[in-house]
């Protein structure tokens, strides 16, 4: 099976950052894909399917994260995660709306 690697950079846009609820949403979506997903904040890389690991990224508003997916559905996975982080912003307000 082909192993496709996809890597994108996303920015946290909701004011409260990647706290537990968004982290759970992230893990929920990541877990729908079979590819391996790692998320990195430059200092550390963690398993994108583990709630505890995603939480320790402590990504605040404005933080840039690298999402790396490896596996046959990696392209779809990174796009779904980008949409969650940057477009729907975990259904949370940005800083100007607070």
């Amino acid at each position: 099976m082909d192993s496709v690697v996809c890597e994108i950079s996303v920015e946290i846009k909701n004011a409260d950052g990647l706290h537990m609820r968004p982290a759970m949403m992230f893990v929920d979506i990541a877990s729908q894909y079979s590819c391996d997903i790692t998320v990195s904040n430059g200092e550390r890389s963690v398993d994108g399917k583990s709630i505890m690991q995603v939480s320790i990224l402590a990504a605040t508003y404005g933080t840039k994260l690298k999402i790396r997916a490896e596996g046959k559905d990696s392209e779809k996975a990174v796009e779904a995660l980008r949409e969650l982080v940057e477009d729907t912003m975990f259904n949370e307000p940005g800083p100007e709306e607070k």
Partner: protein
Amino acid sequence: MKLADFVCFKALIPRLESTNRDGVIAELVNALDAAGKLGKGNCKDLIKTVIKRENEASTGMGKSVAVPHVKSNAVSEVVAAIGMSEAGVDFSSLDKQPVYSIILLISPVDDPDKHLQAMENLFHHLQTEKFRKFLRQAKTVAEIEDLIREADENSTL
């Protein structure tokens, strides 16, 4: 940020009396109140808020720990209370297993970054099997306090 920066040593409960989720939450909030950490905040309201948050999505993240948390005007800094249950408490955890260690976190309303830092620190240690085991086995306030201080000194714990 270190654990000792936000864990309230006067709100450590090695043996929780309650065996249900809401009772445990009340015990932990009351412990923070008794320790004088909640200012003018209303204890009963805070308990309700924590339970409401917990009903929206469980903070039982598996591996026998739960981390209920809310933002509140009652605090100006992040504070945490820790309690252990010998019998285990149903927190509707992700892994459907009972939890034995519960860490309640109250964060100020206007400082989301501090909340994230405290969570980062907490989860860093909670990911370590040794830390979870020692926490669960702690029988006295002093033992929990020692563990917290040791974890602050030794990041692999």
